[in-house]
């Protein structure tokens, strides 16, 4: 009687998943743009402090990093819990700094050597003893451009 008869055998239409890869690609591109390749695995725990007078590190190719902090859990048995310095991939002592700087200088052209910047990534709980030793060694090696890594502080002190 009815002109409107339900189609027999019609199941609920399948959800098309054709756009799923597109969503994933968008996420992927987001991460590719926002992040940087880790230069080295951190063997020390570094949580940088907050600050307001921040400047961006220009010319990443002219930046090398010095990490100072407590060794991570897997290295604490071997190296203790006092703050230590890490250069590139290895734990290091203060005397290793001049050689490290020479190696960094060799990686860049002559004209650009004066623009080398040292980025100090120091944990907020590290003490000034080791930090000032590092700074003194940098000054003696004539590496004067440094950048104290920090996150932007929201709100007032």
């Amino acid at each position, binding site marked *: 009687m009815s002109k409107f008869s339900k189609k027999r055998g019609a199941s609920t239409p399948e959800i098309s*998943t*054709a756009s*799923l*890869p597109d969503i*994933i*690609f968008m*996420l*992927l591109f987001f*991460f*590719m743009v*926002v*992040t*940087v*390749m*880790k230069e080295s695995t951190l063997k020390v725990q570094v949580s*940088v*402090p*907050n*600050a*307001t*007078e*921040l*400047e*961006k*590190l220009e010319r*990443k190719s002219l*930046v090398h990093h010095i990490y*100072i902090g407590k060794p991570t859990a897997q290295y604490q048995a071997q190296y203790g819990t006092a703050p230590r310095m890490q250069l590139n991939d290895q734990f290091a002592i203060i005397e290793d700094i001049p050689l490290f700087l020479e190696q960094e200088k060799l990686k860049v052209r002559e004209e650009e050597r004066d623009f080398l*910047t040292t*980025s*100090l990534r*120091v*944990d*907020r*709980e*590290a*003490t*000034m*003893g080791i*930090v*000032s030793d590092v*700074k*003194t060694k*940098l*000054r*003696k090696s*004539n*590496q*004067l*451009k*440094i*950048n*104290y*890594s*920090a*996150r*932007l502080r929201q709100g*007032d*002190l």
Partner: protein
Amino acid sequence: MAKKPRRESPTVNASSMADIAFLLLIFFLVTTTIDTDKGIQVKLPPWSDEKPDPLKLKTRNVFSVLVNFNNELLVRGEPMEKADLRDKTKEFIMNPQGLEDLSESPQNAIISLKNDRGTEYETYLTVYNELKAAYNEIWDEEAQKQYGKSYSDLDFEAKKAIRADIPFVISEAEPTDNENK
């Protein structure tokens, strides 16, 4: 007569595209970090083996900031909170009321910072940040007064002129070692 084979372009099964995309995504998640590439830019003074002569400077021109191993500040002999440091520094440098115990002029003003080996780095950086912020705010105010623009909008020569009038001079001494005494 043979029927013409039904023209049907074979569709590529695209279900594995999602898997490939997931794999790439996980690869990037694992190998990269959202790095903080910002920080406080500092030019260290060149190393010299001779100690600087402290007697040549007038006490009124020196703004001494001492930080002990308990992360407490002692500014010009008086305890101070970190929150007050910025404004007090600005007052010292510009000396708007011409007080006798504050700097003679921004050109003569020197900040002297001394830490202890046990001071926490976070405190040190906060103190340094407040001192730098004081100067940045003063430079901004000068830029507004002279050019009507903010300091960061000025060209290189104008910035250099303002920095020559109000130089950022901070002298960091060797840290004390009072915790282990």
